[in-house]
């Protein structure tokens, strides 16, 4: 992460713009309270919290820069969606789908882009349209399966 992912300017810029970034060396004695608070067991371990310390998203494991970046954006969008900032969430999900369409998290972003667009417009056609786009772009993805109940009634 230190050698490859974090030095990438697009990664650093996104982190600085959207997050207050905190590094915790899990081997230091001082880290024990926060390691125990967040039940931390394996590194790399990334957590996205609000200012109160409430955890919205997490993942384990190394990601190269142009997988890390869309993952980071999806994490931000999930946090905004759960904070009921649906329009802000929709913008970030849509950004991931447009800028990182071949990334590992793009199908997840497409699934939730439809959800956030629907929650913004209150028009169920936006949900159906977004999920149709998901099926067309990512027909073999897990996220296609998660909307497949609507395919049975179409």
């Amino acid at each position, binding site marked *: *992460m230190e050698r490859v992912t*974090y*030095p990438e*300017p697009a*990664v*650093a*810029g996104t*982190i*600085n713009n*959207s*997050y*207050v*970034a*905190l*590094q*915790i*060396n*899990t*081997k230091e004695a001082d880290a024990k309270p*926060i*390691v125990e608070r*967040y039940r*931390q067991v394996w*590194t*790399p*371990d*990334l*957590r*996205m*919290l*609000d*200012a*109160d*310390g409430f955890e*919205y998203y997490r993942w384990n494991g190394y990601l190269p820069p142009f997988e890390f970046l869309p993952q*980071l954006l999806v994490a*931000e969008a999930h*946090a905004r969606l759960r904070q009921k900032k649906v329009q802000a969430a929709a913008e970030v999900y849509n950004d991931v789908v447009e800028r990182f369409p071949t990334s590992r998290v793009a199908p997840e972003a497409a699934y939730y882009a439809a959800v956030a667009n629907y929650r913004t417009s209150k028009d169920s056609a936006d949900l159906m349209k977004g999920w149709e786009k998901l099926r067309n772009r990512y027909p073999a993805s897990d996220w296609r399966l998660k909307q497949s109940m609507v395919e049975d009634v179409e």
Partner: protein
Amino acid sequence: MIQQIVWENDFEQAQTRAAAEDKLILIDFYDPT
């Protein structure tokens, strides 16, 4: 100028900044060994 990540190393300081700047907190738990 190439942008570098501004890392905090104190959780309470990070919480104070996140509240003031309306940002989320990103924690990177790492093992230097």
